[in-house]
């Protein structure tokens, strides 16, 4: 039987899915063991037990100076920045995507411009953002917006253009105006795509958020990681990295569920 036709059973599927995680953890534990056996005060690969202890301390003990649990505070601040940035980018992307996709004049004006703008590396603009918008919240949000909006606009305008011409013509023969076509034909069909595009751009969004927080901030997940780097506090860094990964994964999963619930007509195509 050909390999392409051999399928794992249910138990084997679960086992195979878990395998890479287990292997990575094993490799870490072995590596950590070897290093700690040689030098008990090694800081590069703390033992899993130590990471767990640190995580517990971070999650429950308040900061002695401010009295706040910094872990949750960092999370809230970072998530707020991410939400505002991604929200702004998504609304801009949706509006411009629809306009570029539907209106030939807007398309002629902006499609080339957006294609060029999307090639500007956002991180190279970061110094400009700090100079123009200061070191406060605004520059971090703006970095996320600048970073992912061009991608969203390009993707959504493409999706709008991909709506079959037949449907648009059909709507015209039913007497729909341009606005009605945008509202009742294009928008509902682009919304599920918006969620997909946002899912894809969440990776870059996190990247820009952490980069901005690492360089200039006094709160946030990225700031904390780069702060404790100075003390080689690998246990803290790893806790934060695992937490960020978990957050990103949960947001992605939530968006996937939302898309399936909110747009039942898309069926299995997403």
């Amino acid at each position: 039987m050909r390999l392409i036709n051999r399928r794992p059973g249910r138990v084997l599927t679960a086992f195979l899915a878990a395998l890479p995680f287990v292997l990575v953890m094993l490799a870490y534990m072995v590596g950590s063991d070897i290093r700690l056996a040689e030098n008990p005060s090694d800081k590069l690969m703390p033992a899993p037990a130590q990471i767990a202890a640190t995580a517990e301390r971070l999650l429950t003990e308040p900061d002695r100076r401010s009295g706040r649990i910094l872990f949750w505070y960092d999370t809230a601040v970072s998530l707020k920045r991410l939400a505002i940035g991604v929200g702004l980018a998504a609304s801009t992307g949706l509006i411009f995507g629809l306009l570029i996709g539907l209106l030939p004049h807007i398309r002629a004006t902006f499609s080339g411009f957006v294609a060029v703008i999307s090639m500007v590396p956002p991180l190279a603009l970061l110094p400009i953002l700090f100079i123009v918008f200061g070191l406060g919240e605004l520059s971090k949000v703006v970095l996320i917006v600048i970073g992912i909006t061009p991608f969203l606009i390009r993707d959504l305008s493409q999706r709008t253009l991909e709506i079959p011409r037949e449907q648009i013509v059909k709507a015209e023969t039913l007497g729909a105006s341009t606005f009605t076509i945008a509202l009742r034909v294009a928008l509902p069909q682009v919304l599920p795509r918006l969620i997909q595009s946002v899912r894809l751009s969440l990776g870059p969004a996190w990247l820009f958020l952490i980069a901005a927080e690492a360089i200039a901030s006094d709160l946030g997940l990225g700031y904390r990681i780069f702060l404790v780097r100075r003390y080689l506090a690998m246990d803290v860094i790893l806790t934060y990295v695992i937490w960020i990964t978990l957050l990103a994964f949960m947001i992605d999963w939530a968006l996937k569920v939302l898309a399936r619930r909110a747009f039942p007509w898309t069926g299995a195509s997403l």
Partner: protein
Amino acid sequence: MSFVTVRDLFQSYGGRPILERINLEVEEGEFVSIVGASGCGKSTFLRLLLAEEQPSRGDIRIAGAEPAREPGRERGVVFQRYSVFPHMTVRENIVAGDSFTRPLGRFFGAARRAALRRADETLARIGLAHVADAYPATLSGGMQQRLAIGQALTARPRILLLDEPFGALDPGTRLSMHDFLTELRAQTGMTVFMVTHDLEEGFKLGDRVIVFDKPRWDPTDPEAYGATITYDFDARNGGIPFQTIKEETHVLRPA
């Protein structure tokens, strides 16, 4: 003055002629089947009728009105695919035939309830009442095309354009769609243009069958000339015209 008048219609894309010198008069209520080989401009002609494109020369008038510059409510259309809105339920698709002229493309309150009631009547007539709340993707090809026709008719167009509407259906479904279309036509008395690949279908449904072909052919440059209407058959009475005796006196009538 006939209902649909096509006068000296030419269409070319980038200097390459597709259609040449097309003249056609169609009476109200006629069913015109359009047949011809692939790439002979049938679909281009339908797009011109639809006013989706503008002809290079000549014009198309419906009931003597000025030539249309974009598709509108006086022309209904059903394509081979993608004719219904996938994000609306079957019932909403029918309602859309009325509500798209509203400012927000929707009905509200009492008008909405009345529209839903009308839609349910339409669905009962076209035999889709049992799937009113389903999405089109879950329907069979024949049901989707029935929905598309019902939706187009909801807008009460002056002419109905069908672009190979049954081309993607299996033979059995196609036959039942023929009956469905014949019935609907008997009820509404619509003027219909149907592009089809299937000659039998064209003659079965149409009152007239017009054939598109290239009258001139340059073997060294096949694209030098465009197509025009080369035959215009009377397809009534099973394609054998002049069978109805019109004389009243001195005629021996069959018993």
